[in-house]
């Protein structure tokens, strides 16, 4: 490229997008850094330095919140990658009703998280829920899925996997379909079986798809709020609180400065995890 080519379009073309980016993203973000250091009632503010951050870190449920957030994100990523990949391999193989099955797998993605949460809340009801009734039917004892503080976050994570695996599957299907047929042909000529095809062709060559799934699921999991709120409200007590639900509760109590400080913490928390992971997995990407 020569210098002339670079000047073909004026930088002014960036202006509309730039303004929108500034007004709706950069400006609020910078303002939130400021307000996180204030005592703020939405109409008044008073600068108090890092006091909000200290208060936030002293919050009794915060340790549970960090642990649950990490656990939730970890489970969601693992579950979505493994299940998504397996379903995608199945749905790209030679089976009947492929299109219909793909639609069915994708269907949960279309339902709002609140509706999914409410539905699973009913399914997991300790005495009337269909899951426990099923367990009882085959002679197993009932489990208090959402009412047991040690179990609640598992139940929510499971529901999140059910809801999000459709997206993962679609991304994996696209990745697998993009693998050139030559490789498979070569494998067949060499007499490889299905497992070898999966191990040596599909797995390494769907790497870009997998990276996308990991990053999306990770960020989604770290900032999950709607599903937790709809299913347990962070309860029983604080046992299934994640960072986002803790922040929301501060906001709901009218502690706007404190809630903003929580959001700044969440922002850095997600950034500190997502960027290194992104770097790490991109380094391992294989060119097709």
């Amino acid at each position, binding site marked *: 490229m020569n210098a002339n080519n670079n000047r073909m379009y004026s930088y002014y073309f960036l202006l509309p997008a730039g303004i929108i980016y500034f007004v709706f993203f950069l400006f609020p973000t910078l303002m939130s850094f400021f307000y996180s250091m204030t005592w703020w009632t939405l109409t008044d503010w008073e600068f108090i330095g890092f006091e909000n951050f200290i208060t936030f870190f002293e919050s009794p449920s915060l340790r549970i919140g960090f642990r649950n957030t990490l656990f939730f994100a970890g489970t969601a990523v693992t579950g979505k990658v493994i299940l998504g990949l397996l379903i995608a391999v199945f749905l790209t193989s030679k089976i009947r009703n492929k299109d219909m099955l793909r639609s069915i797998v994708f269907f949960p993605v279309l339902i709002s998280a609140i509706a999914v949460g409410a539905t699973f*809340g009913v399914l997991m009801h300790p005495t009337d829920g269909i899951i426990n009734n099923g367990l009882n039917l085959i002679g197993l004892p009932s489990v208090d899925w959402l009412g047991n503080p040690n179990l609640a976050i598992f139940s929510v994570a499971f529901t999140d996997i059910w809801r999000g695996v459709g997206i993962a599957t679609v991304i994996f299907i696209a990745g697998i379909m993009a693998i050139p047929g030559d490789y498979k042909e070569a494998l067949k000529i060499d007499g490889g079986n299905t497992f070898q095809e999966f191990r040596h062709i599909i797995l390494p060559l769907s790497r870009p798809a997998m990276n996308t799934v990991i990053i999306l699921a990770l960020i989604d999991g770290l900032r999950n709020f709607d599903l937790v709120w709809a299913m347990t409200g962070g309860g029983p007590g604080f046992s299934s609180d994640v960072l986002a639900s803790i922040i929301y509760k501060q906001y709901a109590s009218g502690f706007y400065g404190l809630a903003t400080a929580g959001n700044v913490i969440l922002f850095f928390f997600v950034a500190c995890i997502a960027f290194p992971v992104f770097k790490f997995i991109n380094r391992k990407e294989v060119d097709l």
Partner: protein
Amino acid sequence: MKTFSWVSVSSALLLSVGLIGCSGGESSSSDGGSGGGDEPVELEFLVADSVNTRGLEAVAEAAEEELNISVTFDIRPGGPEGENVVKTRLATGEIADMMIYNAGALLETINPTRNFVDLSEEPYMDKMMENYKETVSFGDGVYGVPSQSSNVGGWLYNKTIYEELGLEIPETWDELMENMQAVKDAGYTAAVGAFDEISRTQIPVLADYYNVQKLAPDFAEEYTAGDAKFADTPAALRSFEKAYELGPGGNDFYNEDFNATTHEQGMAMLATGEAAHFANLSNVLPTIEDNHPKQVENIGIFPQPADGEHEPGFTVWMPNAILISQSSENKEAAKKWVEFYMSDEGQRIFAENFDSIGPYVVEGVEIPDDAYAAVKQMQPYFDEGRTAPALEFVSPIKGANLPQILSEVGGGFMSPEEGAEMYDQDAERQAQQLGIEDW
């Protein structure tokens, strides 16, 4: 570089336009509004979905004929979610002309002196009972009028089960425990646990305040000053212990699925005779009547007893307040409406149509003869002075996480001592955020 400066200049311009727009909205609130009968005025009235509007609707109908001021009710969610709606709408200047909000500690959190119209000069002020006025007074102003009758916190109980098992109204906490054990042994649910509606987990502690203030008369004052805490005041800690004793950590009196039971289901359990007790506020009676019209007369109420140091008495919840927004464009009309509501005629219409859930706090307004049986049961306590306002009406400090903490204590996952300590920390944060000194 040049490009960059253009971006910043134009976006700064855009922003300042936005900011001017905001401040314009605030200052443009003029005191217009006729409402003298010539031009019809329409007022927006923001109420929580849990509010029984029967009385208000009847008053609104009469007011429309009398004053040519019509009212449209705008329904918001109740609980913390609804408080959030109110706070956000106040901050963005989108609040309704009139609204109903808690009196006392919660009202203080939304800055009444700035957001609402001072009514202290209005003619009906003298009719409001002094102990109610205190809960809506801030600085020199009085900002609200009662939106209904008062109501009490205590134990609703099913009379049929009590008769069947030959039980008496308990005078001490041990007697209550014995009653519950008897109910449990008879195969009924001893006490409804409806922890899905998390705010109700607080009742065993909040309704115990009558006992706390009997045993530690200075608690509210010292608590507000930061000198007394729940964890180190035995009488107050006892409330947490009571909450613990009810649940699986103690005597396990709740229904098995208490964590997932909704408030509605809990009320049905009590009304249909599946369960014998439910710690609740008497303001749930109209809802029980709506869903179980035949059974509501079968429900009685008694106060949460102490350990025998004194006779039981009720903890009273002051009615929520009707407030007029400072930013309303129809302030005069709203004032006229409230004046009509507070007039003898207005209060008569209200009491006739509203299902009283406790004694009124406006002078001259009596509980009608056809009130709920449970409400009539309260009257002797009021006549004998065995009542005290709940802590949130005598102290501005109320931590936001009490429902969560008590769902852990009541669920048996946390000891009462831990719960009380955690709540003291929570209240401390509330005090800091409210800017109260000494905490």
